[in-house]
């Protein structure tokens, strides 16, 4: 639901982080260790996702990016791990 417009553009909540992990933008291993991530790491991951989708790589969860996160897609990762 956070993907549906809630939260601030810096709000890298679980659903955003899970998305970034699922498609290869963040290392999945953190799921098990629960290691926290730095804002830089998250912002860089979002920029990488935006670049892949031909969006402005702002690093923020802006409207376009939120739309992208909702868009139907293939389940395979974009970046090899």
């Amino acid at each position: 639901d956070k993907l549906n417009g809630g939260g601030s553009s810096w709000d890298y909540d679980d659903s955003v982080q899970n998305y970034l992990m699922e498609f290869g933008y963040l290392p999945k291993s953190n799921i098990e260790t629960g290691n926290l991530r730095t804002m830089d790491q998250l912002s860089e991951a979002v920029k990488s996702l935006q670049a892949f989708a031909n969006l402005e790589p702002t690093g923020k969860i802006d409207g376009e990016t939120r739309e992208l996160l909702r868009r139907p897609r293939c389940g395979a990762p974009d970046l090899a791990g």
Partner: protein
Amino acid sequence: SNDFLASNSLSGRYRNGGRRQRRFVIQGQKWDHHTVTWSLVNQSMTDLDAGQVRRVLHEALDLWAQNANISFREVYSSQADIQVLFARQFHGDGYRFDGPGKILAHAFYPGSGIGGDAHFDEEETWLLNEPLGTDGTRLFDVAVHEFGHSLGLGHSSVKEAIMFPWHHVSYRGKDSIPEDDRHGIQGIYGPKKKTYGHNPERHTTPTTTTTTTTTPPPPRRPPTHRYYPSKNQTGHPWQGLHPNNPYNPYKTTPTSTTTTEIPRRRVYYPDKPRPVGTDHPQHIPTPTKVHHHHHHNHPATRPPLPTRPNPCDTSYDAITLIRNELFIFKDRYLWRIFENDLHHRPPALISDMFYGLPRDFERIDSVYENKHHKIVFFVGKQYYVFNSRHPEPGYPKPLTALGLPESIERIDAALVWSYNNRTYLYSGRLYWRFDEDANHVELDYPRDMSMWKGVGYNIDSAFQYRDGKTYFFKGKGYWRFNDLRMSVDQADPHPSAPHWMKC
């Protein structure tokens, strides 16, 4: 690399409008034979017409065949290179579907076993031949994309490309595919060879042939909830796995051979009579843990004790610390290794130390000491909780009592992980975290073993040693695991014998 991840990916990059775009990616794997076989696993679906689905899949494959030196043949067999499966939620590969929307499908790069297979979320509204604009997802568009993965292509950030990750209509019957995709697929298989001596009007000889007749389309029925008959519907998504679902990764037919080969997956299709004697649709013996099920009723006919394994040349069924003492288990024997031992001692029979295991057991699959200081043995589809040398009353119990799926044949390893001292259970390609207080595996599991980078699938054992490190074992070697990096300490395993058996 695991199925989704590239081993040696090659990708074209070019600037487009100043922004660096990532073009087609060749994932490194490819089919080494010219004619790739494929098969639709669900030959009868409640809300899709299998005949129409097969036609669409043909067309999607044919599009690739028209643009590269590759051809396809439909077969109705579990030996197909590309098995096409419609499934929901957990379906046995560790990559869950999520219901209508978002993830539509996924596929695996070329390779044995699950390699090449394409899975579609059956909870999507798939359009087979409805006109553009109809509400739903055109199966053709998604199938062309997924088969790109099945042929070795990764995702491309070129928006028009078939391999662009987000769903879009990439091909409307024009006679060529986007340039990025053509470069990609021809980078793997080369351009389509002209075939001569045929009617020039025709494009080329058919590139996708089928060897089965099309079944008359069954009447379309409204989508109904698919009931997956399984012994105990505990609501765990895994429990719903259809017994015939070929992605039941643990259905194995008990083997009496000692092969350590991993033959290709053998799946008997739901509506196809199975050869006599195969009561399980799946047959994947693991390379090192092959179960022999000799059932002898009379002690007199009990098999002779197996020869003692050679401690300096063996894999381990299980290795663990019990009361801070190192135990190594193999077949019906165990070694106790004391810290100052300079050499391993002769093994003892497991049954001479732990009473109450089945008389004809051949080996244990895994063992660990839990936080209540009980010793938990996993043997096949059952487990025993021992209080010192004796099993507690009421054991053995089935693995399903722990919330594990009915389809699990064995637990390969049980580990109290050094990073968080939580209990993890590993089996085949998947693993679970186990809640010792609730005595049940945790929700949000299983997950794919690729999380434990470098360890691979079908491990033999794992444990946390006195040094506070975690070790994984497979075959005659082991890795030390780097918890923070979530990966093994080195790619190649260390030899076990010198380190653990003091050979």
